[in-house]
């Protein structure tokens, strides 16, 4: 079913393969400022190059640990923040998608003037952060958000009738008695009623407040609703009511959901397709069925093993993830999960920083490190206070303090006086690859890069 509405962005058609929103190489960096002049010393890469599409009428689930960028992604898609790079494209037709992808494949400085004009035209008509005037208004009403904390997202000084009626008023959809009737209709559709009209948010329970948020989001009959952890502040029995309500509303109004959550159980229950995010990147994406019965990426598997479940048995428990999430301002090279991965290979992107990550506090002489001269993330010279410390590091890197894969990834390990030269195999960023129909992952064990592993693959 194609969702068409009279208030769709003018001049666009619902595309035939039903993608409502396309995300192309989206990046959102937050500057880290330091010092009295607040100079920018680095960037937290909250979202770092993601590509996917949200199809009309589906629920796309996004899971990941806190800090993986899933909320930022939702905020960028809903237009609440502008992306640093890349874009979110709304309602592109098939021809336009092909044209856009061809244009984006060319480096910007090599575009001809005609191509540049073409890209500019597409951006102005479809890229969310470039929309203006009526097109922008149309997008805003077509894309609504329901936040995690319903209390802080409702104005405490407004009555329910004002909160739910506000979007209708702003867009001049209704006024006076007609507005009130529309509000009552909306309240009834989320399981509340006329007697809630003259209440303040603090007079309602958590579940009722979340219903008000949903009613407000529904007011303008949007095409897409971004649900950012809509039930994580609610009790189980109330959560079940809200999830059922969301399901009913979707069936009734043909809504598209972007469902962001850290709770795998809820995501499995709600989603048609699921994306798993780790440190700003998508590591795996597939249909719900594939994701939960045969996850491919070790991170997806780890998430599922970690999450306790009412249906699990003692024997089903998998291994647990060790270590902490690395600093998103300096994400690891290659596969970002390689620092914690239990099945890591020498081709997963070991780098100089991993030496510190894995040997800190092991008495490997790193306390006496005096300077690092980096040629690249994979190649550096470490200067030590004395030869003994340098020797200790070399021995630690050859011994059992580091994993076999890391030792194997070392191409060069040389001590000259008190300096140690370390060079790891250079690994490019790992792209997502479709390994089964509709199932993408970036894990080397499943993609075409598997050939690099040779006979290790077994």
């Amino acid at each position: 079913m194609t969702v068409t509405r009279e208030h769709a962005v003018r001049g666009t058609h619902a595309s035939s393969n039903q993608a409502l929103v396309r995300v192309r190489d989206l990046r959102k960096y937050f500057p880290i400022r330091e010092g009295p002049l607040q100079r920018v010393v680095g960037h937290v890469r909250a979202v770092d190059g993601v590509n996917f599409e949200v199809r009309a009428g589906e629920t796309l689930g996004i899971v990941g640990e806190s800090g993986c960028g899933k909320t930022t992604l939702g905020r960028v898609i809903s237009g609440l923040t502008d992306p640093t790079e890349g874009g979110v494209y709304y309602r592109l037709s098939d021809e336009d998608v092909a044209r856009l992808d061809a244009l984006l494949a060319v480096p910007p400085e090599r575009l001809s003037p005609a191509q540049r004009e073409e890209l500019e035209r597409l951006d102005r008509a479809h890229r969310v952060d470039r929309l203006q005037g009526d097109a922008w208004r149309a997008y805003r009403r077509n894309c609504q958000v329901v936040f995690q904390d319903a209390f802080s997202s409702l104005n405490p000084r407004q009555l329910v009738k004002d909160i739910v009626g506000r979007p209708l008023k702003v867009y001049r959809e209704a006024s006076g008695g007609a507005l009130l009737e529309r509000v009552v209709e909306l309240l009834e559709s989320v399981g509340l009623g006329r007697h809630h009209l003259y209440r303040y948010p603090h007079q309602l329970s958590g579940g009722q407040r979340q219903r008000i948020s949903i009613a407000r989001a529904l007011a303008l009959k949007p095409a897409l609703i971004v649900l950012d952890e809509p039930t994580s502040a609610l009790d189980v029995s109330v959560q079940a009511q809200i999830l059922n309500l969301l399901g009913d509303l979707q069936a009734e109004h043909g809504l598209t959901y972007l469902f962001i959550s850290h709770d795998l159980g809820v995501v499995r229950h709600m989603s048609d397709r699921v994306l798993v995010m780790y440190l700003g990147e998508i590591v795996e994406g597939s249909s719900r069925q594939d994701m939960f019965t045969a996850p491919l990426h070790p991170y997806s598997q780890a998430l599922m093993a970690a999450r306790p479940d009412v249906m699990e048995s003692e024997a089903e428990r998998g291994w647990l993830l060790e270590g902490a999430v690395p600093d998103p301002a300096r994400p690891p090279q290659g596969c970002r999960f390689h620092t914690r991965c239990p099945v890591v290979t020498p081709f997963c992107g070991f780098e100089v920083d991993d030496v510190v990550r894995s040997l800190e506090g092991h008495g490997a002489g790193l306390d006496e490190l005096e300077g690092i001269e980096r040629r690249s993330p994979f190649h550096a010279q470490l200067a030590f206070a004395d030869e003994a410390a340098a020797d200790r590091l070399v021995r630690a890197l050859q011994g059992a303090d580091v994993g076999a894969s890391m030792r194997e990834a070392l191409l060069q390990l040389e001590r000259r006086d008190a300096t140690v030269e370390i060079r790891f195999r250079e690994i490019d960023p790992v792209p997502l690859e479709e390994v089964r129909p509709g199932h993408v992952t970036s894990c080397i064990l499943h993609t075409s890069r598997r050939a690099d592993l040779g006979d290790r693959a077994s």
Partner: protein
Amino acid sequence: MVHAVDGVSFDILDGEALGLVGETGCGKTVTARSFLRLVPMPPGVHAGGRVVFWPRSPCPVCGGTGCASCGATGRVPSPCPVCRGTGCPTCDGTGEEAVDVLTAPEERLRDIRGNRIAMIFQDPGKALNPALAVGDQVGEVLFAHRSDEVLRRAGIDPTDTSVAGHLLRRMANQRTRQVETLALRSPGIRGSARKVRRVVDDWVAGSLAETRIADPRKIMRSYPHELSGGMKQRVMIAQALACDPELLIADEPTTALDVTIQARILDLIRELQARHRSAVLYISHDLSVVKRVCDRVAVMYAGRVVETRDADELFRAPLHPYTRGLLAATPSHREERGRLAAIDGTVPELIDPPPACRFHPRCPHAAEVCTVVDPVLTSPPASEGQVACFLYRTPHEVGVDPEQMPTLERTR
């Protein structure tokens, strides 16, 4: 008047992990806090009931390592201080010491809090003192409850009556005054004072290492704000277990943590419980977490316990309609569940709870008797544990007509 906890009874056996599950506002935290008399009064009113703690002492046969005579727990009941174990009215003739936490004198309670019964709180960021280094906070517990042991380990006789002994004892009890700090620096006593500090530091480092904190000596010098949420929770666990308590109360210890960290903390609690052989009261709103940690589960609804059963049994075949509802409403990532069976209605306000069975306004099976008679916890037929529901009683037992009784077949 809010009846936060209203007639709750359950037992925690030595060495078992009991899960206390319920939704927001069902009184589980108030119940747990009563265990240590941490409910502020006023405004709280203790309207009745007892929280009886049976202290244990090390087994005289094995000395605490676990043997056949103490059931491998390494602990035996402490003898009643009044009758010395022969049985008297104060101990109900059992000869075992029993302390009613709710009425015990403050001094006795201080010996229990943090020592015999320890607690881990939900938000480690708020429970730790931001102005004290981690090592000092964990050390406080040892100074407060184990000062004699600390002195003994430092090679000092705790009963030493000399001036030096007196000063060191005051130091180990954290009672040192300003003038005395100078005395502790004097050449004759400096060495011993350092030794005491070293003993405490070693002890603290040992407890921290037990929670698998890497590099405990470094962590001891850091302040809570320098640590991640998972680390802070580990510090709190180390602090709680430093004195080897008989009962550990964990009040939603992983709610503020990420899934992957939660899994590791849950594993840690299980592992340490096995090693210390202490009992655990694990409070959570999350059934799946309780399933992973607990041997037995008590389900609370609106200030009352409605079902107490073996964890495996409860998850396999829940009996009380509320427990069934909760389980059916929990989404799973291991199984497709179709449409969730939500429990209709909302949790009642505890200012004016419904009469008789508090779940009857939301219960699909509710019958006439549920609205007039209060169900009590009884053993259900053909199953162990206890449940407070007329579905598992006969009309004869309750004393009403059969048609007034609820049945599983009849739903409204």
